[in-house]
């Protein structure tokens, strides 16, 4: 018996030893990726779908952007030529595919969640709402197989930027119809094995929660310029895991580093750390229908008692303390009105009827599962210190958090907004009456009049001036308290070249190349 036990122990020892030898990694995955020309990218999560008419997220945009490509136009009458472009199955990409895509997305039965991105097109909204049923009245017209005419609702000087968004990409009509009807929501056309695209890459494999692999598309119109053989997206939601994996050589670029690791990374791994601006703002939504918070003076006081520089230096490392709501983009420069002035804050609070914070209602800050507790705690501390007021924290799961805001069942809520394109409208339009993203109970006729006036303005600089005035009004009324401009803090391996800072973080993978680079530890 003892003898057989010894033999068992010996075999187990040999098995463990061989597993260890087998497991010891000779070549890291980044080195292997460099050799095979496969870029490994952390993508923060799995896409909900690759059918661009069913999704709204940034995560989806990264993958869809490798598989599809849109059109680029210049003015209100946008003519587009697509010389010899092919779908990945060899069929030609035609204007009909674009028109089909817009028709499909706008069709009421499709119930596309991001359909508002196409409302720039004349009559698109009316068709989507079912107010008109004849699609020929919508401003999308196929002139010939390679020319598409789009008539817009109003002048949209930033249209080229908008058409780079995936909601404006074509879909392969022949493939969509092979798997179902045009406006059928859930069909298999976008599944691995079926999906056909016109982008630089084609979908090779998708294992949920594991990885998505796209391989170079040999039929892409500019295939000779594409240096990568493929891109592997890893849906890592735990950013500590992702950071660890990067440092162990398992990926070329991460999606994000946790804010509390930014300082450590800048100290220990400056060769990898990237800190870039990103068109997004973190802010606090006020419920302007609540007694107390319905006074602009109170909201102003709360803002003036907010030390944004300290918040960004201690809690939200890597983010930039904001001076207005809309982040920096192009020639748009709203007045820098947000500042830290506790004395003025106390004065305004007293004028509003709460001298020294006395009698101030005890509000709660609502946060969802995506919020950061330390941010709220910092805010609590600042207001207690400078205004002598106490606020509570109210945590909720994400779905309840969203619903509470939509029903105005909150006092203040942590929130954020990422721009869809590089124009202030993507930040300013949401504060109009009845907009689904407003959720503050605040609206202003003069604010909306300014936005409408800007929409009709064809002179770009005058147009931006009107928006700047509208934003000044927004900051004066302060239904939201912006505190930081979003930044992209991530780790990037120097062997992935051609990766430049982009405000929308929409890196064209077709222009990235992998060159093995020795990194000094």
């Amino acid at each position, binding site marked *: 018996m003892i003898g057989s036990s010894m033999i068992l122990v010996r075999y187990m020892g040999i098995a463990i030893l061989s597993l260890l030898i087998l497991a*010891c990694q000779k070549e890291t995955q980044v080195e292997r990726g460099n050799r095979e020309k496969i870029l490994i990218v952390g993508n923060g999560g799995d896409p909900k779908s690759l059918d661009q008419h069913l999704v709204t997220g940034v995560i989806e945009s990264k993958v869809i952007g490798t598989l599809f490509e849109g059109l680029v136009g210049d003015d209100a009458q946008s003519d587009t030529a697509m010389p010899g472009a092919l779908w990945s199955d060899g069929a030609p990409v035609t204007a009909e595919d674009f028109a089909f895509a817009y028709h499909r997305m706008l069709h009421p039965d499709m119930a596309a969640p991001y359909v508002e991105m196409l409302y720039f097109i004349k009559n698109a909204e009316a068709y989507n709402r079912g107010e008109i049923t004849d699609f020929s009245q919508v401003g999308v017209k196929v002139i010939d197989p390679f020319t598409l005419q789009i008539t817009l609702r109003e002048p949209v000087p930033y249209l080229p930027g908008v058409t780079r968004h995936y909601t404006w990409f074509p879909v392969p009509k022949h493939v969509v119809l092979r798997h179902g009807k045009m406006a059928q*929501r859930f069909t298999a056309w976008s599944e691995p094995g079926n999906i056909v695209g016109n982008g630089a890459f084609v979908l090779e494999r998708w294992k*949920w929660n594991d990885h998505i692999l796209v391989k170079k598309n040999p039929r892409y119109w500019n295939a000779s310029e594409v240096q990568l053989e493929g891109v592997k997206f*890893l849906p890592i939601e735990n950013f500590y*895991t992702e950071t*660890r994996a990067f440092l*162990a050589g*398992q990926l070329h670029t991460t999606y994000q580093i946790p804010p509390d690791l930014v300082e450590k990374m800048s100290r220990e791994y400056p060769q990898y750390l990237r800190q870039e601006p990103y068109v997004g703002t973190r802010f606090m939504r006020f419920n302007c229908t609540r007694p107390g918070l319905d006074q602009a003076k109170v909201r102003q006081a709360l803002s003036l008692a907010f030390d944004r520089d300290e918040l960004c230096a201690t809690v939200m490392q890597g983010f930039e303390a904001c001076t207005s709501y809309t982040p920096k983009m192009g020639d748009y420069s709203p007045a820098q009105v947000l500042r830290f002035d506790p004395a003025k804050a106390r004065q305004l609070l007293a004028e509003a009827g709460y001298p020294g914070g006395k009698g101030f209602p005890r509000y709660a800050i609502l946060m969802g599962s995506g919020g950061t507790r330390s941010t709220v705690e910092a805010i609590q501390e600042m207001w207690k210190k400078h205004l002598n007021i106490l606020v509570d924290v109210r945590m909720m*799961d994400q779905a309840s958090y969203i619903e509470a805001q939509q029903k105005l069942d909150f006092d203040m809520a942590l929130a954020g907004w990422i721009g869809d394109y590089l124009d202030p409208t993507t930040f300013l339009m949401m504060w109009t009456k009845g907009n*689904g993203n407003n959720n503050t109970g605040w609206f202003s006729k003069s604010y909306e009049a300014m936005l409408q006036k800007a929409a009709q303005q064809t002179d770009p600089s005058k147009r931006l001036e009107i928006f700047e005035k509208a934003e000044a009004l927004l900051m004066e009324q302060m239904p939201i308290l912006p505190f930081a401009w979003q930044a992209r803090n991530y780790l990037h391996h120097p062997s992935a070249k051609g990766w430049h800072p982009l405000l929308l973080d929409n890196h064209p993978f077709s222009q990235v190349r992998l060159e093995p680079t020795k990194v000094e530890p």
Partner: protein
Amino acid sequence: MIQYLFHRLLQGGLVLLALFTLSFFLCRLLPGGPYQSEKAIPEHVKQKMMEQDGYHLPVHQQYLRRLSGVVRGDLGLSIRLSGRPVNDVIAQSFPVSFQLGLVSMMLASLIGVPAGVISAWKKNSAVDFGVMAVAMLGLCLPSFVIGPILAETMGRSWQWFPVMGWNGADPSTWVLPMVTLGLVYAAYLARLTRAGMLDTLSQDFVRTAHAKGVPMHRILIKHCLRGGLVPAAAYIGPAFAGIISGSLVIESVFQVPGLGRHFVKAIETNDVNVIMGIALLYGGLVVLGNIVSDLLILWLNPRARTLSS
């Protein structure tokens, strides 16, 4: 025996029906609904989605529709994953959770059972205290502490194993999640086995065996192990059902594409069909695990066999 099995299966069926009904109505009570999005979806679009997915029907009709689907083996579509069949979600993630659960449970048994036996044999000695102290540590340290420590050391610093990812064909990717998950169960098993073995070792037949001059290792393995394993066997069935239906912490720390994350995500986004599909699967596994546990005990313990018949 067959009658006993039949009864247990019937009970299991009723438990699953109750589980289905309860989880269906509890999901309906959750605030939010499955169509919440960070960027607001226009109200008319949301209405259309609800119509298309049958959410506009009265609740009892929805219940009957879902029930008939489940009876036919169709768990419905996931709203969060844009219409993916829940059956597909489970088919792709469950094998990973199963594989991870299986290897972890094997590791737990390989460590826990011998440790419990040795501990009982050397009762109140330094060895016993040492083993039990380690087991207690294993129980007290949560996997979200052990996991990152193992990943930092064996993964990142020593480069023995990948710090994350899962490949069914590459055992090196299993090691860290398997050890993290297995250690907790090993600690439980060690304590249960020790208790069971101590109970058996105090029986009269053991004293008789000693008196007859039977060597200790023979008494332990041949005479006592079967009886001493009964508490561990009762634990293993349901524990195995739990372990293979996914562990959020392990899946998150090691990026394992198992069921646990789907379950938690579904709850966060109120993806009713996925919640119910995974709950039913988990319920089914617990029922099955309990039946297997009972059969194992019947085999290990002749007295239980007489009682059941």
